[in-house]
């Protein structure tokens, strides 16, 4: 549980895939918003699934960007 997600609101086109994969982390409003945290692997999976590549996953401990 050390990964954090951020969403590029200008890039998000509200496909909703992230919410479907990790509903405790992402919620679809006009664009997707981060509402919490979840399992690291689930957050990565959501980021990889985003057709707009609008989700950035960072390891909060090391500060290393893991995706994209």
């Amino acid at each position, binding site marked *: 549980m050390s990964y954090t997600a951020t969403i590029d609101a200008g890039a998000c086109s509200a*496909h909703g895939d992230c919410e479907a994969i990790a509903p405790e982390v992402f919620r679809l409003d006009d664009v997707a918003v981060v509402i919490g945290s979840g399992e690291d692997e689930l957050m990565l999976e959501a980021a990889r699934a985003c*057709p*707009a590549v609008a989700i950035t996953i960072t390891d909060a401990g090391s500060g290393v960007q893991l995706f994209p």
Partner: protein
Amino acid sequence: MIGDIVIAGGGLAAQRCAETLRRSGHDGRIVMVCEERSRPYDRPPLSKEALHDGVDMDALSFRPDAWYTDNDVELLLGTGARGLRAEERVLELDGAPALHWDRLLIATGSRPRTLAQLARFDNVTSLRDAGDARILSRVLRPGARLLIIGAGFIGQEAASAARRAGADATIIEAGAGPLSHILGSEVGAWLSAMHHSRGVTLHLSSEVDSVSGGREVGSVTLTDGSRVECDHVLVAVGVTPSLDWLAGTPLGPGAIRADADGGTSLPGVFAAGDCAATLDPALGMHVPGNHWESAARQGTRAAKAMLGLDAPAPGISSFWSDLHGTRIQYLGHAQSADAVSFDGDREAHDFTATFTREGRPVAVLLAGRPQQLPQARQLLSTTTR
């Protein structure tokens, strides 16, 4: 105070409009008039995974049934829009009482173009709705011979699905290469090579000359003289706006010209999605719909505009396709390009094609590089915006 809002249509733009209205605080009546009998569902999978895995309406639906009751959105399923009396603010329906509206969204989408010489045969279909996908997914069995007319993305995705299912696929395309009228001859040649390598037969610069068969098409003869036998024919030669019902009004039958917020020439009437040609302020022109992201954004923006709320400037819309296991993404407008450069390995289906006009990037196509999309978007937004 906004009164009743009626949404004519049950696709993505319609759904996003309804969701945004409720989220933005509209507590008045919302009615969605959906010609299909299924609640609103997502269409891109119909030419992709649904052809392989089968059509699962619960998976395709945007929202469960309960969402509509929970949000007090009235769904009129199996009900088509039949006419518009704009001055009285009335939408006439097929088989249901007319609806009065204070704001109307026209989002009736588009329907596939058909070919007259194939219209009478039983084994000829298009690929637009869930019923079409069900038919095609049943056809795609090992050894089945699928003939596809048109090498747009739908036709190419169907060919990809056919090969994955072990069926034969033959594509007939009037142009010199798949999508070469939009993406140029080099990308067209790459797409052709990709299909060849996966066992798809392509007949380019070719059209159907004559058709033989009884109730079903047995074979077609092409303008290049060759003859193709088939078990099923998919006609994928583009779409036309579903606006026949607006005959006698100032709108239609061509795509409805809408401003960036969906407003039309009629007060209180908005248009979004495939039936609209929406102003792109950055390009200074009205762009016809037909893409998922633009329909989603337009539905959202129209909802905001109906309520008098500001919407953020739209980002650059991209669209995507999956062909033979390779994700293809495209953003921008390559038609205006005068040059294209490639970075990467075309044979490995791993490259970026950058389209430029007078040296400025106007479009980017990514093959097998989904993680490059942010950079591509950045490149275009700094040069075209």
